[in-house]
Each structure stands twice: as structure tokens, then as C-alpha cells.
């Protein structure tokens, strides 16, 4: 039973990788949203400063 192939270790690795890939993808969407929010805030602040400067 120590033979890695017979014990399906390969597919265990795939399974665990799949679980974590999905969660990482979700984290990445969170990060991209974070960036988008940051950009929006920056743009808005600049716009407000412009308007106040006038």
C-alpha cells in the first residue's frame, strides 16, 4: 500500500489543489475589487479637490 499511484495520491493532490484554487480565485476577486475601490476613491478625491479649488 505504499505505492503512491495505487493510493491515488495524485488525485488527492488534484482535489486539494482544486479546493484551494477556488478559494484563491475568490480571494483574487476580493483583491481586484479592493483595487477598484481604491481607484474610485482616488478619482473622487481628485474631483472634489478640483471643485473646491475653483
Amino acid at each position, binding site marked *: *500500500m505504499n505505492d503512491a499511484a495505487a493510493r*491515488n495520491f495524485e488525485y488527492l493532490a488534484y482535489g486539494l489543489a482544486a479546493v484551494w484554487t477556488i*478559494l484563491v480565485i475568490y480571494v483574487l476577486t476580493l483583491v481586484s475589487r479592493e483595487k477598484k475601490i481604491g481607484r474610485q476613491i482616488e478619482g473622487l478625491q481628485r474631483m*472634489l479637490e478640483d471643485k473646491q479649488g475653483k
Partner: protein
Amino acid sequence: MRERILYGLGAVAAALLVRNIWKLLTGLPDEAFQGAIFRIIFFHVPAAFTSFTCFLCALIAGIAYLKSKNLKWDSFGVSVTEVGLAFGAANLISGMIWARIIWGIWWTWDWRLTSMLICWLLYAGYLVLRRAIEEPTERARLSAVMSILSFSVVPFVFFSIKWFRTQHPQPVLFGDGKMDTGYRVMLYSNWIPLLMFAAILVAVRMMQERRQREIDALRRAAHAF
């Protein structure tokens, strides 16, 4: 302060996960018929538990929003639903990989798989509904209703599909309630770090929602000039 709590939680969760994976690979004996692949279950089942915990929280958030009209509950609701969907997807995909090896097929219309898929679709519908509404309070109100309705249909889905499928021959499910204590302890001890991880994601997502609201307020202020 809040960020420090999150980092701490993340560190504990990561430590627990590493310990669990280590124990999984070295400490536990292989299951008699399935070899090493059965270890997927220690992520598969806790992921399902986590996603259902999230959906339950979404129900609570929906009711609480309708009672209090506080938009914080709405951002909590959308955060837990998204995280629940992520964990639900992890559950489905890991189950499919397991099924490919053990049953020889990617998918079978077994009641557990089918009802999980329907739950997933219901809550994905919730997110699609949110996207279609611009006005924040209207969005919060309607999605709270959607969340309550989704949760109340879940028991029906469970029972109906169970009745439907048990009338047909189905692959024998591994375990079926009879599980060795060592495995069971492992299962629950892996649920804890996953829940912590989910909590971190929810907290991050909620902060984003709050900032998004601030942006909207800023934008209104900018236009009011």
C-alpha cells in the same frame, strides 16, 4: 485594531491548517477501499458545512435587515453569501474529483450533489439579482427577501430530491454516518480553520462594502456641488 484581529485569526487558521494537512498525510491510515483519495473528504465536508453556515448567516442578515433597515446587515448578507458560494464551489469541485476516482464518473444525480447544486444556483441568483438593482436601499430590501425565500426552499429541495433519488439505485456512499472516531475528529478539527478563513473573507468583504458606500456618498457630495 480590527485588522490586527483579522491577521491573528488568519495566522491561527493557517497554523491549524498546516497541522491538519500534516496529520492527514502522515498520521491517519488510508481508508480500506479508497486509498489516499478519501482524504479529500476532510476538506469536502467541512467546506459544505462552512457554506451552509454562511447561508444560515445570510438568512439571519436578511431578517435583521428587514427589521432594522440598517445597511450593515445588508453588507453582511452579501458578504456571507459570496463566501458561502465560494465554499460551496470548493465542495462541489472536490466532490467531483473524488467521484471521478471512486465512482468513475464526474457527476451523478445523487441527492446530495443535486441539492447542493440547486442551493448554489439559488444563491447565485441572489447575487445576480443584486447586480440588477442600482438603488442601495431597494437592493438591500429585495435581496433580503430573496435570501429569506432561498433559505426556506432549501429544506424542500433536500427532502424532495432525497425521496426522488432513493427510489433509484445509487452508488453506495462512503461512510454514511458510520465513521471512525479518528476520522470524525479530523473532520471537525478541519472545519474550525475553514470557518475562521471564511470569517476573515467575510470581514474583508464587509469592509469593501462599507467603503463602497462611502464612495457612493462622496459621489453624491461631488455632484451636489
